[in-house]
């Protein structure tokens, strides 16, 4: 199974640049890049406002579930999910085989504008992922810095 390429600082800097550009142009509140398994890769904007770890896990699941529903009704061109809110709305876009772009924006902002500006961001993020993949094809992990001897036990139960 192919995996998300290993990302280095340069990749994250490029992706963050694209996200910040999107936020400036669209006036959206926050933008996140997620792995389709629900992991958060990077985020920009007003992130302290939301529980973004949970938001990422739920948004990835929502996208996967809606994609499943779309395929049940023979919809092959599925690439985004829009959740309209009274305060904040949310747009989840497909980036590539591994990633999603999530944009959170105030309900007053037009979703059309967010979608329009997100297109450029999606392309930039996808290009950076390709560059990362090309840098080390098939390379997923480099955990040489880890030391397993120090990990046991990772989790401790509170004493009664």
């Amino acid at each position, binding site marked *: 199974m192919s995996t998300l390429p290993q990302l280095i600082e340069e990749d*994250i800097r490029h992706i963050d640049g694209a996200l910040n550009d999107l936020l400036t142009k669209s006036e959206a509140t926050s933008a996140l890049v997620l792995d389709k*398994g629900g992991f958060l*890769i990077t985020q920009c904007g007003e992130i302290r406002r939301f529980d973004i770890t*949970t938001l990422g896990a739920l948004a990835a*699941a929502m996208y996967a*579930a809606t994609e499943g529903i779309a395929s049940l009704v023979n919809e092959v061109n599925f690439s985004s999910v829009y959740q309209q809110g009274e305060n904040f709305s949310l747009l989840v876009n497909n980036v590539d085989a591994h990633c999603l772009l999530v944009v959170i924006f105030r309900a007053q902002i037009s979703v059309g504008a967010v979608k329009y500006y997100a297109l450029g961001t999606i392309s930039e993020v996808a290009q950076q992922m390709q560059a990362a993949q090309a840098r080390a094809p098939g390379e997923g*992990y480099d*955990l040489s810095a880890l030391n397993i001897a120090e990990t046991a036990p*990772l989790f401790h139960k509170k004493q009664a």
Partner: protein
Amino acid sequence: MAIINQASKELQVKIVYYGPAMGGKTTNLVKVHENIQTAQEKGKLVSLATSSDRTLFFDFLPIEAVAIKGFKTKFQLYTVPGQVIYNTTRQLVLRGVDGIVFVADSQYEKMPENVESFANLEDNLRALKMNLVNIPYVLQYNKRDLPNVAPADYLEFLLNNRDIQVPSFSASASRCDGVFETLNMITRMLLHKFLSESARRSA
């Protein structure tokens, strides 16, 4: 698959608790959430459940472990719905899984459901082009505090009777017995796997 973010020095890992309906998967997460000793802010346990508290989509608990050599290690724990009808949902939750805890119900009358659920796990992994040979997993024989439980050896024969046997734990999740032992073992196996893959690639 696990995310290694060299920029933010983060390692993110997904662990899925799988098993038959009402076997104690959600209870495992609830007990981890209630009892974990953590220096960091505790993650929120999210349950997408029906009004009768049966898992509908999944439960989700993010937890952070101590930093290992400068890496922040973030574990995302998920459960799947156990009811047979929710198979599509189980496949969605398994997407990108790194490690699995199979929670079996030790009661005698639940043996067919345990076996069926384990076979279902293998089927669903196959559909995602994965298999148990490559994914670390552990077995938890839950509900050992109940009177009508099968011997652990019998559960071993049913679920762990393979070329390579995996670690198994007797547990009583409602009392938090065996819950942390199981979690620590699967995380240890996962980190070992990542390290050995990393070493093989760099060789």
